[in-house]
C-alpha cells in the first residue's frame, strides 16, 4: 500500500474528486464508444499512424481546442474566486495550482499546437508542395506534444499539480519549497513537448527552404509562410535554452544537483534568466504566425494585395533578432543595476517600431479597399485597436524605473492578456473560420460566428480592462483573495462578468461547429472566400497529394493572378507522385515518452530506464529500416481528379465568385 501512497493528491478537494470521477467516466465512455462503433482500425490506419501534414494539422487543432477548455475552466475558476472579497471557493493552495496550470496549458498546450496546426495545414499548400520535408518526424513531433500534454494534465488527479507559477521560479520550485511531485510534472511534460516543438522547427525551415513550387523565390512566399519561417527560426534558436534549463531543473529536483539552489554555489536567479532567454522569443513564436494569418485575411477581405510586402518581411526579420535582446524586462526588479535595466528598456521599446510598421501596413492594405466584414475580417479589424492598446501598455512596462510600480500587479496581467488574446487568440479563431471550409468542406455559420466574435471581444474588454485599474491601485498578481477595504471588489466582479461572457462565447463556437456540420451546404467549391494565394488552388476536400501538378508561381498571390490576370498555374503532363508511407513508430514513441516522463516524475527508476532504452531501440530500428515510400501512378491520379469534376460547379466557381 505504501507504494501507492505517492500517487495520492496532497491537497484534495471535492472539486478534484469530482474531476477524477468525470475523467474516469469520459475515458471509459470514449473507449467503449470506439469499440462499440468498431472505429479502432479506422483511427489507427487513418489518424494515429498518418504522416499526412493535413491530418496531423487537424489532430493538433483538435488537441488545442480540447486544451482550450481545460485552460478556460481554470480561468473561470480564478475569476470566480476573485469576484468578491474573502471568497471561499478555492483555498490558497488550490488557487496556486490553478493559475500555474492555466498559464502552462494556455501557452504550451493551446497556443503552440494551434500555431503548429496552422503551419501544418497551410505551409505545404502555400508553397505548392506535397508534404513537409520530414513527414515521419512531423508525426513524431505531434505525438511528443500530445504525450507532454497528457502527462501535464494527469497531474491534478495523480500526485498533485505544479503550484509554482507557469514561470516556475526557483527557489520556490526547488525541493525545499515545492515538496509535491507537481513541479516534476512541469519539468518533464514541458521537456517532452519541447523536443517535439524543436523538431517541428527544423522540419518547417527545411520544408520552406527546400520544397517550394517552381518559380516561388523567397520574396514570392505568401505572408503566412514567411511568418512561419521566421517563427521556426526563432524556435530553433530559443528552445534549446528551455531544454537545458528544464534539464538542470529536473536534475536539481531528482538528483540533488545545485544549479538553482540557494546554497552550495547554486544560483536561483539563473533559472529566471534562462527561462526568459527562451521565454521572450517564445512570445514572438506565438505572435508572428498570428500576424501571418492576419496578413492573409486582411488582404483577402480588403480585395487588395498586402501593402508593403518587403517591409512586412523586414520587420519580421528585425523582430526575430530583437526578440533575443530584451529578456531582462521580465525581471527588472530582480536586483541588477540601472545600467543593465536601461539597455534592456531601450531594446524593448525598439521592438515597438517594427510592430508598428506591421500595424500601419495592415491599415494601408484596408485603405480604399472594398472591405467585406466576414467573421475572420471582424476578428482582424477588432485586433488592430485592441492589440495597439496592449502594445502601448507594453511600452509603459518597458520603462524599467516605472516598472517597479507595475511589477507583479494585475496591470501586468492585463497587459499580456491584452496582447495575447487580441493578438493570438483572435487570429487563431479568425484562421479557424477562414480555413475551415478548405479542410472540412463546409463553411461555419456567419451569424453564430459573429455573435461569437462579439461575445469574445466584449468579454475580453470587460475581463481585462478593469485589471489595469486595480493593478495600478496595487492589486497583486497571484493573490488568492483580498480584503473588502482594498476596494478591489466591484472591478473584480466586472472582470468575472466579462469572463462569463467569454465562456459563453466559446460555447457558441462549439455550437457553431455542431450547427454548421449539420446544416451547412457542402457544394462550396474550392475557393469560397475569393482568396488570393496558392493554398486555395487545390480541390476541396484536398486530395492526399495536394496538387496533381505542381503550381507554377510568379508572385506571392499566384492564385489571384490565375483568376484575374490569366496566369497559367498548372501546366504540363501529370507525373507519378511519390508519397511517404504511414508509420506507427511515432505513436509508439509518444507512448514510451509518456511512460518515461511519468516514471521520472515519481522517481520510479526501473520503468524509467526501460522506457529510455525503448526510445533508443525505436531510433535504432528506424536507422536500419528501408522505406522508400510509395508511388501514386498517373492512372490513379486521373481517377481521383475525375471525381472532383463531377461535383457541379466545383472548378469554375473559383473564377467568377465574389460571394461571401
Amino acid at each position, binding site marked *: 500500500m505504501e507504494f501507492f501512497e505517492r500517487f495520492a493528491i496532497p491537497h484534495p478537494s471535492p472539486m478534484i474528486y469530482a474531476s477524477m470521477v468525470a475523467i474516469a467516466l469520459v475515458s471509459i465512455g470514449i473507449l467503449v464508444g470506439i469499440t462499440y462503433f468498431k472505429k479502432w482500425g479506422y483511427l489507427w490506419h487513418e489518424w494515429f499512424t498518418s504522416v499526412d501534414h493535413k491530418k496531423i494539422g487537424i489532430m493538433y487543432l483538435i488537441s488545442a481546442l480540447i486544451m482550450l477548455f481545460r485552460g478556460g475552466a481554470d480561468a473561470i475558476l480564478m475569476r470566480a474566486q476573485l469576484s468578491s472579497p474573502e471568497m471561499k471557493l478555492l483555498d490558497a493552495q488550490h488557487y496556486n495550482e490553478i493559475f500555474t496550470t492555466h498559464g502552462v496549458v494556455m501557452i504550451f498546450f493551446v497556443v503552440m499546437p494551434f500555431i503548429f496546426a496552422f503551419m501544418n495545414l497551410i505551409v505545404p499548400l502555400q508553397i505548392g508542395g506535397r508534404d513537409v520535408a520530414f513527414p515521419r518526424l512531423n508525426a513524431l513531433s505531434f505525438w511528443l506534444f500530445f504525450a507532454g500534454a497528457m502527462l501535464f494534465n494527469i497531474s491534478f488527479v495523480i500526485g498533485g499539480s505544479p503550484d509554482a507559477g507557469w514561470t516556475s521560479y526557483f527557489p520556490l520550485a526547488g525541493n525545499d519549497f515545492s515538496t509535491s511531485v507537481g513541479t516534476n510534472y512541469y519539468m518533464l511534460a514541458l521537456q517532452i513537448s519541447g523536443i517535439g516543438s524543436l523538431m517541428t522547427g527544423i522540419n518547417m525551415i527545411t520544408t520552406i527552404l527546400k520544397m517550394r513550387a517552381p518559380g516561388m523565390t523567397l520574396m514570392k512566399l505568401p505572408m503566412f509562410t514567411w511568418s512561419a519561417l521566421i517563427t521556426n527560426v526563432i524556435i530553433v534558436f530559443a528552445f534549446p535554452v528551455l531544454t537545458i534549463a528544464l534539464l538542470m531543473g529536473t536534475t536539481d529536483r531528482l538528483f540533488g544537483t545545485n544549479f538553482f539552489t540557494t546554497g552550495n554555489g547554486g544560483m536561483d*536567479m539563473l533559472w529566471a534568466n534562462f527561462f526568459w532567454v527562451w521565454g521572450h522569443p517564445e512570445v514572438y513564436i506565438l505572435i508572428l504566425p498570428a500576424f501571418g494569418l492576419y496578413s492573409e485575411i486582411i488582404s483577402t477581405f480588403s480585395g487588395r494585395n498586402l501593402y508593403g510586402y518587403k517591409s512586412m518581411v523586414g520587420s519580421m526579420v528585425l523582430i526575430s533578432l530583437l526578440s*533575443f535582446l530584451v529578456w531582462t524586462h521580465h525581471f527588472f526588479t530582480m536586483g541588477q543595476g540601472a545600467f*543593465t535595466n536601461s539597455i534592456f528598456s531601450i531594446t524593448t521599446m525598439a521592438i515597438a517600431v517594427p510592430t508598428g510598421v506591421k500595424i500601419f501596413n495592415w491599415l494601408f492594405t484596408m485603405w480604399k479597399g472594398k472591405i467585406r466584414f466576414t467573421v475572420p475580417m471582424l476578428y482582424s479589424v477588432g485586433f488592430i485597436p485592441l492589440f495597439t492598446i496592449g502594445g502601448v501598455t507594453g511600452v509603459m512596462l518597458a520603462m524599467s524605473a516605472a516598472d517597479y510600480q507595475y511589477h507583479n500587479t494585475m496591470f501586468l496581467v492585463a497587459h499580456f492578456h491584452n496582447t495575447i488574446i487580441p493578438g493570438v487568440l483572435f487570429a487563431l479563431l479568425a484562421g479557424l473560420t477562414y480555413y475551415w471550409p478548405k479542410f472540412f468542406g463546409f463553411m461555419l455559420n456567419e451569424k453564430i460566428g459573429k455573435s461569437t466574435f462579439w461575445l469574445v471581444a466584449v468579454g475580453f474588454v470587460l475581463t481585462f480592462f478593469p485589471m489595469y485599474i486595480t493593478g495600478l491601485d496595487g492589486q497583486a498578481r497571484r493573490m488568492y483573495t483580498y480584503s473588502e477595504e482594498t476596494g478591489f471588489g466591484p472591478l473584480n466582479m466586472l472582470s468575472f462578468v466579462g469572463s462569463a461572457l467569454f465562456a459563453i462565447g466559446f460555447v457558441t463556437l462549439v455550437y457553431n461547429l455542431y450547427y454548421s456540420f449539420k446544416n451547412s451546404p457542402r457544394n462550396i467549391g474550392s475557393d469560397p472566400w475569393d482568396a488570393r494565394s496558392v493554398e486555395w488552388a487545390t480541390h476541396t476536400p484536398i486530395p492526399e497529394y495536394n496538387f496533381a501538378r505542381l503550381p507554377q508561381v510568379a508572385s506571392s498571390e499566384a492564385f489571384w493572378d490565375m483568376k484575374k490576370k490569366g496566369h497559367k498555374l498548372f501546366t504540363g503532363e501529370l507525373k507519378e507522385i511519390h508519397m511517404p508511407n504511414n508509420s506507427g513508430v511515432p505513436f509508439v514513441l509518444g507512448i514510451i515518452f509518456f511512460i518515461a516522463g511519468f516514471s521520472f516524475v515519481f522517481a520510479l527508476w526501473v520503468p524509467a530506464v526501460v522506457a529510455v532504452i525503448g526510445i533508443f531501440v525505436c531510433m535504432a530500428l528506424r536507422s536500419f529500416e528501408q522505406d522508400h515510400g510509395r508511388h501514386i501512378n498517373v492512372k490513379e491520379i486521373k481517377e481521383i481528379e475525375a471525381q472532383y469534376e463531377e461535383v457541379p460547379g466545383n472548378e469554375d466557381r473559383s473564377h467568377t465568385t465574389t460571394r461571401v
Partner: protein
Amino acid sequence: MKELFPAKQVMGFVFSLILTAVALLVYFTNMSFAVGMTILLVTAFIQAFLQLVVFMHAGESKDSSAIYTNIVYGIILAAITIFGSLLILIWDM
C-alpha cells in the same frame, strides 16, 4: 591524381591533431588559469571551424551562404545570451 588524393582532408586531419595536442599541453604543463583558458578557447573555436569546413563540407554546396548565415546568427545569439547573462548576474549585480 590530384583529384583522387584528398589533400585538403589529410591536411585538416593533421591540423586538428596538432590543435588537440596544443590543448592537451594545458593539462600536462603548469600554466596560469588565464593562459590555459585562453589556449583552450582559441584552439576549441579553430577546431570547431575546421571540422565544419573540412569534414562537414560547409561551403561546398550551393547553399553555403545560407549555412554560414545560420552559423553566424547562432554565434551572435549565443554571445548575446552569454554576455547578457554575465552582465545581469555578475558584472552589474
